[in-house]
């Protein structure tokens, strides 16, 4: 059972120290202590970075919008997240009378749990991971599926029909975007030859961003939708259905949802950098620093996209998922499958050739989709308008 963590030196040190205390008979106790220590370290670091990320996002979005973000609370406003947390703790914890208490209270936990669970497989640097599951990518898919369940729980338990609408729309969006996401992960698994995230990291002689740009773009859009992030944040924008499935949540429960959302962005950044940005040759000595830099780069791009692109309507989001991203992801998988069969060794020059072909496919696919879009009046007509037109003419 402890074999998974053998290569992790921190785990090894704590395990040996604990074995020295309790002896070999209670080895499972030593294992538990060592594993708990590592989990506490990783989880706390993750959650702390999530709160720090809220500060960074508010400051950077402020600068994108020609204003200063929060800068009053600490030096440069760094303690703003703590001030928010304290405020949320002080708020009254309102549970609607008709709400399902147990499910209502469980939903925020079910929302935060998958993002913390997904940390188990992500390599933070060389030999620095919690578990080298040989099915790491599948594990990530599984944990992202739990989040949509949490949204449904939140919406139903609020016993508020508008929260229910918001939850339904959110879940529809989440499950629609899981398909292109899974297809892209499939393509990356084909390229790397393994589903293990550490193998994906090490097999990137050149980053997969250059080898499969279409996959990276689809992944970025799909994961933005999974994170309920602009431009797909219709479920939680204030002008839409108050706060969607979060309407009835106040106080720290809302704080947990909020934290889960921002921590998920960092998690998505970690996954993106593992799948598409990993494997530079300067990996080894400063691998953790490089990892953080890549995560922050993803976070910056996510913030940039958020400040620039206006929100899509829910029907536009569905159309993008099913009519644009899904066919493109199928094209991506097909192309990569053919390339992997043609050049099975995946050495650096072969990856470069694959990359060139894929860039060509990306360009052709973009042009084709845009042309088809323009011909069909794509995102412009809303379904209600179309219904009126059908009635009249």
């Amino acid at each position, binding site marked *: *059972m402890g074999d998974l963590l053998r290569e992790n030196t921190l785990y090894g040190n704590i395990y040996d120290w604990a074995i020295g205390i309790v002896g070999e008979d209670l*080895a*499972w106790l030593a294992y*538990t202590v060592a594993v708990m220590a590592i989990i506490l370290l990783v989880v706390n670091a993750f959650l702390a970075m999530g709160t720090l990320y809220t500060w960074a996002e508010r400051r950077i979005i402020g600068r994108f919008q020609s204003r200063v973000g929060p800068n009053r609370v600490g030096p440069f406003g760094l303690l703003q997240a703590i001030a928010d947390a304290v405020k949320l703790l002080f708020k009254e914890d309102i549970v609607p009378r008709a709400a*399902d208490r*147990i*499910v209502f209270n469980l939903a925020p936990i079910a929302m935060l749990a998958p993002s913390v669970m997904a940390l188990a497989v992500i390599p933070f640097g060389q030999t620095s991971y919690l578990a080298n*599951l*040989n*099915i790491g990518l*599948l*594990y990530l*898919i*599984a*944990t*992202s*599926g*739990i989040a*949509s*369940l949490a949204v*449904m*729980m939140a919406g*139903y*338990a609020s016993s508020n029909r508008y929260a*229910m609408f918001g939850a*339904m729309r959110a*879940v529809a969006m989440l*499950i629609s975007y*899981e398909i292109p996401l899974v297809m892209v992960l499939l393509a990356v698994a084909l390229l790397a030859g393994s*589903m293990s995230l550490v193998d994906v990291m090490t097999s990137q002689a050149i980053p997969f961003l250059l080898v499969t740009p279409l996959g990276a773009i689809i992944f970025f859009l799909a994961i933005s939708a999974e994170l309920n992030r602009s431009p797909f944040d219709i479920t939680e924008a204030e002008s839409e259905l108050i706060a969607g499935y979060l309407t009835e949540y106040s106080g720290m429960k809302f704080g947990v949802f909020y934290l889960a959302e921002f921590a998920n962005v960092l998690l998505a950044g970690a996954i993106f950098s593992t799948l598409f940005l990993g494997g530079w040759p300067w990996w080894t000595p400063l691998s953790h620093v490089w990892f953080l830099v890549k995560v922050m780069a993803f976070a910056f791009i996510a913030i940039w996209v958020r400040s620039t692109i206006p929100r899509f309507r829910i029907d536009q989001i569905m159309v993008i998922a099913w009519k644009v991203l899904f066919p493109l992801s199928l094209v991506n998988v097909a192309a990569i499958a053919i390339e992997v069969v043609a050049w099975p060794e995946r050495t650096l020059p072969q990856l470069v050739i694959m990359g060139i072909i894929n860039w060509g496919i990306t360009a052709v696919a973009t042009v084709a989709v845009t042309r088809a879009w323009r011909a069909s009046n794509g995102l412009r007509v809303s379904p209600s308008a179309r219904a009126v037109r*059908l009635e009249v003419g």
Partner: protein
Amino acid sequence: MQPVDNAFQEFLFWLLAAVTVGCAVLVVVVRDMFRAALLLIASLMSVAGIFVLLNAEFLAVVQVAIYAGAIAILVVFAVMLTRDVPEANRSSPIAPAAFTMAAVLLGALIYSIMQAEWDLLPEDVPAPLAAVFVDTPARLGTMLLNEYVLAFEIAGVLLFAAVIGALALVRER
């Protein structure tokens, strides 16, 4: 390999078994439909935990992905969108007969499980079988596309038919 290596795994097994059976019983007892659905999902997830204990982590992850990620949503949507479901598991006249049937079935199952001679896998697992434990997806994938390819393709056609049916149902006239 032993089913449980140490006391901790044994404790985990009993915990997961209790959760599975308990949630399954509660599914048919609880009054609120949505809670019954959630308890079903909890039961299935603890089954995934039992798979992990059996060194079948691929199955465990697939169990979570399919059941909690897809079927759970399906069940919940079905519960949401069905009208007139005020209360689940109301007491009905055939309850005693149903309980008796269930008890008889349970007795038969327990008896046959205790009676059977279960073969444990030997300590050193023979070669083709060991490959499954080392790299389950690869072995499964190879088998699906070599020996069971017909079943695989039929499943694909079935899913295709389901998708076309769904599209036909929601077409705008």
